[in-house]
């Protein structure tokens, strides 16, 4: 295959970037998209030009490190697929492919196609955990968890934190990511004690960095794990309850 690539090049966070065009002949359809970029880089290095920086690690769609805007779609044209699992057979010979980094205020560009997604970690640090001191856990079978709840929690927990939801959202909202994180824990019996503080803290931290959800649904389409929009609705519901419950708990704190 012969591919013409238009790739965003930017030397640093504050530099101005621009598209550069590269011809990529002799591409095998069996290659993954990132292997194609590896090859382009190999040829650039041979020609004495700096290779294109892009992020990737596990290359099996689970670590969430990779993520490119390919022809205007987060992770490219194949549904439920992270960039690393996208293969060149999804494209046609002679195709022009535009590759751009994720863009959002909270994801500053580090270099070329690499962005800094630290904001997602800040959301988790705000409350995306169950505080369970090592050593204090009861026997795992002490609390039965209805299979349905466990499965739903797992559906949410499948999120790989790649940021495609933010990248794809016209508002750069991180609702799908946050909702997945919140609901994974809120759906489980173990997560109930911190449910309301978690919900409030995580939502409010999310809003420090990202845009708001206006229910476009682009995030779900871009999500390599097809996380459902229903989790967003569940989070919205939990958020109001959290506002009320946390007020009540504040009151309880003052008692006695």
């Amino acid at each position: 295959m012969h591919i013409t690539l238009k790739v965003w090049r930017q030397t640093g966070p504050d530099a101005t970037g621009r598209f550069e065009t590269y011809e990529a002949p002799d591409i095998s359809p069996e290659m993954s998209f990132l292997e194609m970029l590896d090859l382009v880089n190999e040829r650039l290095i041979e020609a004495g030009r700096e290779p294109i920086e892009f992020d990737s690690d596990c290359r099996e769609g689970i670590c969430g490190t990779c993520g490119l805007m390919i022809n205007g779609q987060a992770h490219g044209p194949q549904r439920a697929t992270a960039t690393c699992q996208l293969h060149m057979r999804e494209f046609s010979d002679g195709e022009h492919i535009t590759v751009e980094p994720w863009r959002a205020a909270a994801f500053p560009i580090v270099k070329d196609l690499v962005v800094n997604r630290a904001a997602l970690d800040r959301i988790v640090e705000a409350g995306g955990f169950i505080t369970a001191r090592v050593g204090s856990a009861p026997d795992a079978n002490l609390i039965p968890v209805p299979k349905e709840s466990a499965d739903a929690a797992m559906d949410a927990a499948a999120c790989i934190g790649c940021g495609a939801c933010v990248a794809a959202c016209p508002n750069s909202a991180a609702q799908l990511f946050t909702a997945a994180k919140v609901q994974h824990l809120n759906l489980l019996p173990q997560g109930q004690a911190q449910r309301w503080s978690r919900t409030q803290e995580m939502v409010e931290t999310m809003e420090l960095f990202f845009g708001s959800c206006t229910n476009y649904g682009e995030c779900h389409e871009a999500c390599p794990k097809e996380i459902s929009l229903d989790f967003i609705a569940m989070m919205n519901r939990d958020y109001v309850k959290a506002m009320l419950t946390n007020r009540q708990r504040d009151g309880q704190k003052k008692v006695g």
Partner: protein
Amino acid sequence: MTLTLDAKIPSGPLTDKWNNHRFELKLVNPNNKRKFKIIVVGSGLAGASAAASLAELGYEVEVFTFHDSPRRAHSIAAQGGINAAKNYQNDGDSVFRLFYDTVKGGDFRSREANVYRLAELSGDIIDQATAQGVPFAREYGGLLANRSFGGAQVSRTFYARGQTGQQLLLGAYQSLANQIREGSVTLYNKMEMLELVVEDGRTVGIICRDLISGEISAHAAHAVVLATGGYGNVYYLSTNAMNSNATAIWRAHRKGAAFANPCYTQIHPTCIPASDEFQSKLTLMSESLRNDGRIWVPKAYDDNRPPGEIPEAERDYYLERKYPAFGNLVPRDVASRNAKLVVDEGRGVGPLKNGVYLDFADAITRDGRDTIEAKYGNLFDMYQRITAEDPYDLPMRIYPATHYTMGGLWVDYDLMSTIPGLFVLGEANFSDHGANRLGASALMQGLADGYFVIPYTIGGYLSTFLGQPPLPTEHEAFENARRAVEERTRTFLSTKGTRSVDYYHKELGKLVWDNIGMARNRTGLEKAIAEIPALREEFHSNVRVLGSGDSLNSSLEKAGRVADFFELAELMARDALHREESCGGHFREEHQTAEGEARRDDENFSYVAAWEWKGPDTPQELVKEPLTFEHVELTQRSYK
């Protein structure tokens, strides 16, 4: 001076060792804990769990990872599950049975005391993970489900769909996040440790490069914990992540930490075969697939018919034929070696004839498509995305690939290396798996190390340093180390050769795979020992690293890692050459039975081979830690 290895195995009966030891270890008073600073390098299962639990105890913890988020460590990719001797299935499991299976599975090349402790702690891990909200698979009654995995004859594997590693890592990462929020852990991400700093014979800190700004900085602590994962990427193609590397442990090795059993590497039988020369990594298909899939190749050589057209009588279900008792569920090393045998014979399948079939047709006929889909749906989807073939119709094609490295830095029972104050956890150490690791045991080991071992054992070491602050980073030990790192970086950038880092990594990988891979022999190993240094020389004089050192530069990062792989590969070859026996993942063609099975030599090789660094121009020296077995009987593994 030659090192002496003291494993510090506690006295007393096997079942009481850990308990007694915990009592004997000196404690650090709660108020004093915060005066101790601990650096944890690595945020995988081992690192994240260690950092979180040490911080809970009150130590001041700093975590370093080259990943952008702790959650991206390669533990995330583990699919199959985690073992624990809970005996929830009432099928006869026990701590002793898990212990026994692990020692036997490791081909009797591990320490009894360590493995027993691991088995003892296994249940606590499941309790801890469940309390953290890890969504393990459940039965309809709401209790935990198990499956049998990797040839175990009891169902002791806990799992979360095909994403167990992901879920366990998220659990550990979330605990870490909790501690970051509390302010007891400081996270340094996108920071790669490039040197260990040792002063006066003990560990005082590390040198790191900020991968985004290129800044090189020194960090001091009372103790350093390395949990930096395995070195499988020395093969270039492996199931490890692109960035997994051995630099942290190799740098520590060069500073005096003995490296144990480097030749023990595990080749996983069920990976998707490479599709072309540009293949950048191999993808694992969970071992659980072997529970229902049947492995076969055509009986005829060079059979080009599509699988559906090969009649039953012309297929060779070679594992079922050779190992009637275990069939397709033989341990990994046996399954891998047999796949290599048939492919080398010319009976491989697929366009490059580099695979064997893993066929679900019978299982689908027997259980129905829905059942198979419920069990393996996500794996089948993944296979289809990668190969564009539908495993419901066509048998999968699989081939072995490097997957895990049992070798690693030598540690004693307290997980401390031969450099005082340097602790090593998870895949980075050599501890519990001997010469071969059983499926679903790495997650168990990483978490046992992090949650339940290091929080106790590190206290014993630290308690002797009360009142001493960490060495200031202005100290010349740090200055020298920092300058050395800067110098190394500069050298790569100024070499201005003609070939990329990846080119050399691939060349090295081929050498290692061909000669120190699934089956080894003297000629091949000697060839490797002769050729690796030559290639390394060429690498150092001809590598081309473009760009600068003061911004993100992945070629530069890779250059340092590949340089270390070169040295490690040579040690692997020497270790493999010296071990004149076959055991576990180390199969020497000279040492096999008439039927082609591995032949151990317990008389002469029942020891841990620890290698001590002797300087860049002198080969490492072998130091042996003898292994004694009191509770298991050394038998030849047989899966017939």
